[in-house]
């Protein structure tokens, strides 16, 4: 029997879940949660996509673009 896990707990562990840095028990609880919670599943999928997207070197020269953006600091 898998102990239930809340959405908040799932969000807190999503990054570790993607890294594979969680216990087998937490992973099992999260996977059970994803089956019944489309919102958390959407967050998981989106977060995984972000990691895949920025990790793809062919997407764009990220660092150059970032430095362009961060050079334009808002005047507060």
């Amino acid at each position, binding site marked *: 029997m898998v102990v239930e896990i809340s959405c908040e707990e799932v969000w*807190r562990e999503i990054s570790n879940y993607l890294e594979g840095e969680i216990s087998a028990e937490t992973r099992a609880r999260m996977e059970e949660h994803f089956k019944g919670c489309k919102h958390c599943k959407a967050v998981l*999928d989106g977060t995984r996509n972000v990691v895949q997207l*920025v990790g793809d070197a062919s997407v764009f020269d990220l660092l150059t673009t970032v430095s362009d953006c961060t050079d334009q600091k808002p005047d507060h």
Partner: protein
Amino acid sequence: MNRIDQLDPTQGGHEILEVGVPPGSLATTSVVLTKRQGDASEAELIERVLGGDGEAFRELVRPCEHAVFMATKVILNNDADAEDAAQEAVLKAFTNLAKFRGDSRFSTWLVRIATNEALMKLRKQRYQKLHDSLDEQPEGEEGDYIPRDFADWREIPSEAVQKKELRQALSRALASLTPKHRDVFVLRDVQHFTIEETAQLLGIRKSAVKTRLLRARLRMRDALAPGIDGSWSTGRTEYEQVRPW
């Protein structure tokens, strides 16, 4: 025609703020005092300044420097900020001297300008602090980050990756991260350092890397989800927000 304008430094300072500081005025106000105060009356000094005598302005300001500084210090409670505000006040007094009505002493007028400067600086600091705290709340190391949207984003369509809009959105999303979150995100997810290597490179604990990475990733997802759910993947021009509440 009286040269004195309607400028009233007690009116909140907005009118004064609009006045630009002419090039070279800083240098003018920094001119070393060569004459002893009391050599000329206030009115005479003002007349000389308006005639282009920068040294006269220094002579005019010198007797009230301490009062100006104290006026800003008592509000800002910080020497550096107080000096900045005092310097700004002196510059504004210089550029607005022609508008000085002369119905009070120059020192009183200058102290009022300084008080306004300090108050404006204080408001700005408070606003910035509030802004930072609001910005920091979901980013903080302690509190949980709550995803803003739950759009179903199952896959990245290959054609979307090629789109300029996505690249621009990625840049904007990345630039919107705070530096400490961006550093971790770029090292781990863009440059593929391990969590341990990222921790070593940044001189922080692994637990801090994980916490920052989580926030950075969720924030990036939030920033990118609208386009992925909308125009990039489906061709729709409208983005439909999906929230569980």
